């Protein structure tokens, strides 16, 4: 018997017999109804039995569905669960996070590689790991890590709420909770390698978040958090240039996916379109600001580099020092691209919103066709639908914003 508080093989058999008993009692209830058998006590007893059986069955299935058991097929169970082994290994190896910086595959790489490409197994592993940091900072092989997280949050196979639970924990672990980092004393750490890993993890984070970025602002209620919190994390992710590129590239697809299925109710439908337009506004603005911030940081780095000679003890006379200082400022200004980036990113923002408005138009049109509000794509849309389509486009790309940005560029 393992350390687990159950025997999965017997538990699977138990689940099968409980299900078979439940099926039989449901059949008895139907037969009694068909046979017009009016015995109240008989009916009550059967319902009570069914409730007890279902309670027990739920208990058993909850354990069988947990990732602590590796269920490759219905009743072929084994204890080689990745989550179980990973959690146990972490418990006995407090230096797990320094292993990733040693330039060779880690034990965690091995654990993750078994489940990374399978959406269900990858999700189970993440959900069953209370301490998430090893599934982010414990890998040397970042490609496997990338595949693990992308599989577990793929919008084609993952519901919005499940992806939300996983991604919220991910961003909280990356940006907030770092206590594990200072609390333990690892063997040795390659600081440069660690920095490289962190940079690359930020880029991967951009890829993971990209299809779900609307849930960080306008659709935040789908993930049960506030748009302020979501935008706070989205801003942090967009600080990495690589992540910002992924976010920008994924915005169109996220927009199309979230607008393709709209509620039947007209008020709810318009509310959703507005919430999505709000998200598009927030994402595009954050991405523009990220580009400008990046340009400022690069310019500050250059300015810092140029001041190094003035700090050397050259014992130059005061006028010479002044000349050097002014030369530094001149060179720094010459290479400062912040202003150009501000203008170019504003123009890009306008162009991007124009493109996104077209995508939104197509998505809402498609939604109208699939929901039956428009019988055929070749039919002329009703007045109501035309107004809805116009409202969608105007919410994302409108004259007020264009005027505002143009004034900013000219100013």
């Amino acid at each position, binding site marked *: 018997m393992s350390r687990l508080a159950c*025997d999965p093989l017997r538990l699977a058999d138990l689940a099968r017999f409980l299900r078979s008993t439940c099926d039989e009692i449901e059949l008895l209830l139907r037969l009694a109804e068909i046979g017009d058998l009016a015995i109240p006590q008989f009916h009550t007893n059967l319902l009570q039995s069914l409730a007890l059986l279902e309670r027990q069955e739920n208990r058993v299935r909850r354990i069988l569905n947990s990732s602590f058991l590796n269920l490759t097929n219905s009743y072929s169970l084994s204890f080689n669960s990745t989550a179980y082994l990973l959690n146990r290994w972490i418990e006995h190896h407090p230096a797990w996070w320094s292993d990733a910086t040693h330039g060779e595959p880690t034990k965690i790489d091995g654990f993750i590689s078994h489940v990374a490409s399978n959406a269900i197994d990858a999700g189970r592993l993440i959900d069953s790991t209370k301490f998430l940091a090893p599934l982010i900072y414990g890998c040397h092989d970042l490609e496997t890590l990338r595949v693990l997280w992308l599989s577990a949050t793929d919008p084609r196979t993952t519901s919005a709420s499940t992806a939300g639970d996983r991604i919220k924990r991910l961003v909280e672990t990356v940006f907030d909770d770092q206590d594990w980092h200072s609390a333990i004393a690892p063997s040795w750490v390659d600081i440069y390698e660690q920095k490289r890993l962190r940079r690359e993890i930020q880029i991967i984070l951009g890829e993971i978040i990209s299809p779900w970025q609307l849930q960080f602002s306008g659709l935040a209620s789908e993930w049960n958090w506030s748009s302020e919190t979501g935008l706070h994390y989205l801003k942090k992710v967009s600080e990495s240039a690589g992540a910002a590129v992924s976010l920008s590239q994924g915005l169109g697809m996220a927009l199309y996916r979230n607008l393709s299925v709209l509620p039947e109710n007209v008020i709810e439908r318009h509310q959703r379109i507005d919430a999505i337009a709000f998200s598009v506004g927030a994402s595009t603005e954050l991405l523009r600001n990220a580009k400008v911030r990046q340009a400022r940081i690069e310019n500050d780095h250059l300015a810092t580099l140029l001041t190094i000679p003035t700090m050397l003890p050259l014992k130059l006379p005061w006028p010479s020092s002044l000349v050097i200082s002014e030369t530094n400022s001149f060179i720094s200004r010459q290479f400062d691209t912040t202003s150009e980036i501000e203008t170019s990113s504003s123009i890009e923002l306008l162009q991007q919103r124009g493109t996104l408005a077209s995508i939104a138009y197509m998505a809402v049109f498609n939604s109208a066709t699939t929901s039956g509000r428009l019988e055929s794509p070749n039919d002329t849309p009703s007045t109501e639908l035309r107004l809805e389509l116009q409202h969608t486009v105007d919410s994302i790309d409108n004259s007020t914003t264009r005027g505002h940005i143009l004034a900013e560029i000219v100013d």
Partner: protein
Amino acid sequence: MSISLQLAVRIQNTIEGPLRQAARLSDSETWIGPVAMISQGEIKQITHLLSACIDSLRVNHESSGL
């Protein structure tokens, strides 16, 4: 055979078939700790309820005079 009798036979078969197997598997070989006791208690309760169903069906069958 009346409907009451048919149902009584089915219930008896359920008690002796899958429910007995479930009772056998809800033991300390499957569960470590108090869950085994809780599970067995529940299975006993189900068996008791189903036996009461058989009694109700028997009474119904006898009173109908079939």
